[in-house]
């Protein structure tokens, strides 16, 4: 292992460019759907915030979220693919960006039904934001499946890590809350960047 470590470090130090839209690589609609939310920060950060929040909830809530959030995302993605994009949904999405970060920062333990409702509403909105009109037939199903799998993977890994670290390390819950404050700060700035020019004009 020690002999392999330098090679692993060298590989880790050589990041490559990545794009949210696979126009040049053509990996197929499944991977396009899977990578779209993961490579776009405006989707990824609120997902991470919800996952961190799930990690701070009782285990039953977090486990239920692993099933419900991907289903909500799938529903939203189908809606987003079938109907034109709504600017209202984008603005609600911005609000979720900030408010989920705030909930993590405060480390609020929500009632199970309330947390489930938050996850479902946010999942549908986020899925809608990932919808695209460019997929048809089998490609449509593959794209929706890709986004759904990404939602499951992000939610499972991040919420499990947040749950473990906040439960097993003395500094764990502080670290999770600090990450929440970073996401909240990014949400405030990004919302301001998008909304303030419109208000000023």
């Amino acid at each position, binding site marked *: 292992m020690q002999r392999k470590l330098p*090679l692993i470090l060298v590989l880790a130090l050589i990041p490559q460019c990545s794009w949210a839209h696979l126009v040049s690589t053509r990996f197929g609609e499944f991977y396009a759907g899977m990578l779209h939310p993961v490579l776009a920060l405006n989707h990824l950060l609120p997902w991470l915030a919800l996952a961190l929040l799930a990690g701070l909830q009782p285990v039953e809530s977090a486990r239920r979220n692993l099933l419900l959030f991907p289903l909500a995302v799938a529903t939203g993605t189908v809606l987003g693919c079938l109907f034109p994009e709504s600017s209202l949904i984008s603005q609600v999405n911005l609000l979720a960006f900030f408010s989920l970060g705030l909930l993590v920062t405060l480390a609020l333990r929500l009632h199970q039904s309330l947390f489930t409702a938050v996850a479902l509403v946010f999942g549908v909105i986020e899925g809608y934001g990932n919808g695209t009109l460019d997929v048809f037939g089998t490609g449509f199903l593959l794209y929706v499946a890709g986004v759904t799998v990404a939602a499951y993977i992000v939610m499972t890994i991040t919420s499990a890590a947040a749950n473990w670290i906040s439960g097993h390390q003395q500094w764990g819950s502080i670290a999770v809350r*600090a990450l929440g404050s970073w996401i909240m*700060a990014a949400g*405030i700035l*990004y919302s*301001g960047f998008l909304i*303030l020019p419109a208000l000023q004009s």
Partner: protein
Amino acid sequence: MKYLALKQHTTKWTLTLTLLTMAGTASAHTETGVAGGLISGFLHPLFGLDHLIAMVAVGLWGAQLERPAIWLLPITFPAVMAVGGLLGVAGVALPGIEIGIALSALALGTMVATNARPPLWIAAVLVGFFAVFHGHAHGAELPTAANPLAYGVGFITCTGLLHLSGILLGTLTRWPAGRQAIRGLGGLIAALGAYFSAAAFGLIA
């Protein structure tokens, strides 16, 4: 012996070939993709010594004050910094930005150097007050970034990691010699802050 030499030779060739197959994209124009976003946002606090020392001082002071300040101050800073950033994004002029940033290093460094222990709310207000200036300086540049969200995430992440560096350095306060070393570091930050303040007021070139 011969086997070992052969194995080392093979490892070097493997490494060389691996590196050769990982050629990166070359862009004719800089600031493309997220280069004008995440990376430039991340580097902004790092390459500005006045930003850097003030943010490390927040972590050091938090570590000196212990719980709950150790987590409250680093969480307060990015949140209030984002509000300052909003003012910058909106184009709201804030007087004395550079002076505020320089004074933040002077004030926070002094707090660490003197091991000041004010009530928690005073520490939070002080840190939050200076965070507005840092946020405004970053936020003013955000609308011109190639990827504004990535730029914001970059400088927020870097800010948080600088706080973390301060907190990790601050763990030295567990030992008597470490406590003195941290206070000395605070003194150095305050001295640099005094220099930046003098420069911001135009007292030195």
